[in-house]
């Protein structure tokens, strides 16, 4: 089975910001989290996949098709949720249903109503009266009712409370039960991605720092807290980033097992995706 998304050597130059040689692969049946600090290039990458911007180089294939030559065909099978509500304040969920049913061939009105019920979204109230969480749920209900093979979500859970976020993440996990489907989700909230993502691609200053399976990533990376003298014993090739403090330092290493084998005296703790992000940025700065 072909991959849901293949991005190879994607480049985009905005003058002040460049997306450089971005490559990653999202297999079907999985969820990929796109992480990175503000302005790292997450949204630009998603825009390039959706042809919302013109790329300067590279190739992108979605659902096994070239994303430029088969744009319409691809978009029939892609559900999209962008970072802010995209429906007009004066529209109701009923209006949204009427509009989108005329745009997507595979639109399922019955499914949409089921999601409205599940998310407790009133059908005849205007979007203006919805809370932020409700607006996001409406966008997600709409994206899922397209019966997509691929869901692309740009910061879909940002700004939502943990209860709503969990509810939404559960929907994505349900969605992925069908192994022909896939989800690409960008988020600042790395703890969300730790819960659901099978793969993680980390963008930093327009480049892919790493793109690996979440389990392998969390298994291989580790955090070392030690005096500065001990840090010098660690081969630089294992060091990703370091934070100095008055007691010594904390460092992120990219091969936990190897460090533990080579330096048994050092304690190497497990890390979170947030640690990896923070230390990489720190390491880059230093």
């Amino acid at each position: 089975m072909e991959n849901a998304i293949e991005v190879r050597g994607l480049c985009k130059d905005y003058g002040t910001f460049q997306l450089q040689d971005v490559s990653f692969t999202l297999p079907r049946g999985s969820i990929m989290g796109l992480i990175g600090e503000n302005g790292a290039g997450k949204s630009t990458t998603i825009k390039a996949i959706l042809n919302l911007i013109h790329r300067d180089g590279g190739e992108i294939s979605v659902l096994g098709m070239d994303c430029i030559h088969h744009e319409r065909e691809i978009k029939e099978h892609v559900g999209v949720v962008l970072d802010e509500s995209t429906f007009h304040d004066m529209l109701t969920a009923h209006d949204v249903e009427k509009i989108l049913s005329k745009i997507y061939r595979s639109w399922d009105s019955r499914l949409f109503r089921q999601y409205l019920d599940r998310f407790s979204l009133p059908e005849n109230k205007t979007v203006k009266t919805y809370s932020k969480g409700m607006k996001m749920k409406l966008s997600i209900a709409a994206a899922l009712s397209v019966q997509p093979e691929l869901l692309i979500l740009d910061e879909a859970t940002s700004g939502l409370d943990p209860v709503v976020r969990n509810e939404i993440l559960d929907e994505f996990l349900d969605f992925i039960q069908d192994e022909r489907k896939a989800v690409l989700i960008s988020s600042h909230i790395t703890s969300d991605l730790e819960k659901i993502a099978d793969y993680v691609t980390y963008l930093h200053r327009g480049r892919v720092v790493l793109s690996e399976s979440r389990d392998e990533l969390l298994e291989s990376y580790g955090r070392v807290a030690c005096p500065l003298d001990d840090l010098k014993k660690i081969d630089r090739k294992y060091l990703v980033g370091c934070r100095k403090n008055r007691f010594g330092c904390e460092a992120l290493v990219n091969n936990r097992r190897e460090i533990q084998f080579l330096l048994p005296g050092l304690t190497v703790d497990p890390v979170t995706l947030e640690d990896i992000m923070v230390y990489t940025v720190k390491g880059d700065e230093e």
Partner: protein
Amino acid sequence: MSGLVLKDLLVLRKQGRSYLLIIGIYMVLAFAGVFDYSILSTMMVVLTMMLPMATFSYDELARWDKFAAAMPVGRSGIVKAKYLTAFAVTGGAGLLCFVVNIIVAMIDQEAQLGALMAVLGGSLGAGLLINAAILPLLFKYGAEKSRSIMMVVMLVVFILVFGLVTVAGEGGFAVPNAMAAAIPWLAVLLVLGGFAFSYRVSQKLYAQKEL
């Protein structure tokens, strides 16, 4: 694409109701003899000019453009839908004025239906031409900037037309009869050609736009 036209019409629902109220008030005033009946057609031009621009403003407010371009209709469908909306709004307003003109002619024996319909035809053409001029600007610059540009363009056009008419009047210039008969057809050609040209330009501009 019909979904996008429907979206525009649904978004304009409330505004449409307000405009109908305004037209209703002008109708009453026209019947009361305060205004000439032809004011209704002129009003229509102003309103049809404002409605497509309003849809762009609402789209910007909702950040709809990116989402719409991510749908199967794509950029070309978005442009097509806006032109269809402009046609639908102008056509709807034209139909309304057509019916009103007939009612006026039935009620008021002094009203000349032919003259009213001629003003309506002219207004429809002007409305479509104004839309043809403004739509590419809206696609290129968005609603806010286009509004200012459009005001300047309208002012320049008004000064030019007013100047030409004054100069022609002072110079004693009169349109020959043969040419006068061809004017309505030339106007239709101008409107259709202008709209087609404007559509091509908008497609090109929007295809290049970074969303």
